[in-house]
């Protein structure tokens, strides 16, 4: 691997873990979140602060994830009070609240953010390998979860909360679980990013980032682990491959979101599996 590719791997990994995390909340459990960048940010800031305080790398990573997970639980509590549209706006507000607090706080470095984060000590190659491993673990977790009774119950909640409750599924606990796991993964991604960039600023966790994460999930095919992974890799790489697109990255995100929703809400993976029903379709069924 040359240096450029090695430098891309953590970035792809961060996006993949973010998208897979949101997929657990939105795809598996059916709860929309327009504020996922906040948990990404919480993980990054938590890891950065701990790293700056001298905690070792192998400890800050899980602790960053845990911190984000706990905050996810709090937002999950809000999700118990509000549904669908209300929840979308509430989570969007959570994102802005996070930014508003971070920007004004000296602890988090205000507008300038935090700098001077120590290196992971693994070197670029080693770090890329670690990230690949974490992505693989997240994919495995997603696939296992979907096959387990947890995924089964999630699917029922996503389709009809009331009916799920009538069948003895304790829906609030499940929603909290989804928000905890999904947000913890976002936090993990944040911690990974923090050691990758070695400095973080509030802008890295803006509303646009929440939308980009959603775009990866939706374009890949909401609910489908491989589709979402594909969506994350594709949307991270596209602007890199087509350098000219860098300028229009945001425009393309918007366009892609709009077009996929308008013409193929099941996502590109969903569309592919319809176009190639024999092979991919069977694969999907086998997984479901």
């Amino acid at each position, binding site marked *: 691997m040359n240096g450029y590719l090695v430098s891309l791997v953590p970035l792809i990994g961060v996006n993949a873990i973010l998208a897979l995390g949101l997929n657990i909340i939105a795809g598996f459990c059916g709860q929309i979140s327009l504020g996922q960048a906040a948990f990404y940010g919480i993980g990054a800031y938590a890891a950065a602060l701990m790293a700056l305080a001298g905690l070792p790398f192998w400890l800050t990573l899980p602790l960053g994830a845990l911190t984000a997970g706990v905050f996810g639980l709090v937002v999950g509590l809000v999700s118990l009070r509000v549904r669908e549209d209300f929840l979308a706006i509430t989570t969007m507000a959570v994102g*802005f609240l996070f930014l508003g607090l971070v920007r004004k706080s000296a602890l988090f470095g205000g507008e300038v953010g935090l700098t001077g984060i120590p290196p992971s000590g693994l070197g670029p190659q080693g770090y890329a390998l670690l990230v690949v491993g974490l992505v693989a673990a997240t994919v495995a977790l997603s696939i296992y979860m979907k096959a387990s009774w947890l995924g089964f119950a999630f699917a029922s909640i996503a389709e009809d909360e009331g009916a799920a409750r009538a069948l003895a599924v304790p829906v609030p606990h499940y929603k909290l679980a989804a928000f905890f796991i999904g947000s913890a993964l976002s936090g993990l991604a944040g911690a990974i990013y923090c050691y990758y960039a070695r400095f973080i600023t509030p802008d890295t966790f803006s509303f646009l980032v929440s939308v980009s994460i959603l*775009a990866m999930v939706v374009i890949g095919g909401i609910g489908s682990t491989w589709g979402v992974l594909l969506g994350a890799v594709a949307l991270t790489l596209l602007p890199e491959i087509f350098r000219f697109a860098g300028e229009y990255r945001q425009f393309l995100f918007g*366009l892609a979101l709009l077009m996929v929703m308008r013409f193929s809400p099941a996502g590109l993976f969903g569309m592919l599996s319809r176009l190639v029903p024999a092979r991919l379709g069977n694969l999907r069924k086998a997984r479901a």
Partner: protein
Amino acid sequence: MYYVELAVQGLIYGSMYALMALGLTLIYGLLRVLHIAHAAVFTLGAYVGVITANATGSLWIAFPAAILAAVLAGIAIYRLVYAPLLDRPPLVPLIASVGLLILLEDLFRIVFGNQGIAFNENPYVYMTVTIGGLSIGVLQLAMFVGSVASLSAFAAFVAFSRTGAAWRATLGNPQMATSFGVSVAQVRYLNFAIGSAFAGLAGVLIALLNNYAEPGMGTIVSYKTLAIIVLGGLGSMRGALIGSLLLGVIESYGTVYLSGGVDRDAIAALCLIAILMFRPEGLAKRIAA
């Protein structure tokens, strides 16, 4: 006096939020779509306003031009994006709307540049009037008066005209439309037209106040007005109006007293989360029209 001044400032911003929130409420009330891209219509209004004013030198042309552009954009958005998606789960039009907002915002950036565009001349920027000992910017006053006037005109239209009555009935019960001789589709177009006109007007007013239009000017307004209509109890116009003015005033005081802890734009989120925890249905119970 200082407190009064803060309250007045708050009401002025609140009136602008009300213009935006009312459009969103109209659209949500009828279609159950959270029209996030409403912010792009607002930004379009601002750009068209600035461009027309610069080209013609007349604000009297700029206002109608901006409103017209906003109305056309609103109708096109309904026709091309929402109408085909209405029978889908709510997530689908919502995400499409987010996509549309991102796309249009970036389009403004690509076409008109990162910095936005300013009025060639805007003689009102520094003008103030003194009312009852309070010194208020002419443009701020114009924003308040413009908002209140157009919202009142709208209220009068709904309350007293026959079309207004039909429209009100349809909001409560779409099937009623036919008995008034209008189709549900017509009422939907009308809602988008009215809502977008308000957004266009708000756009020009804000552009005048800031003296320029910029690509991202809609995002924050969008999130705040969405928070407001959720606060107000989705679909309730009264709730949206109260929520708008309330948020304006809270922000105004909050900017002074909370400035150490959160920035102005996060106050709406704080209000939203605090109120939802206690009243998940928002401030007002849902009132049909």
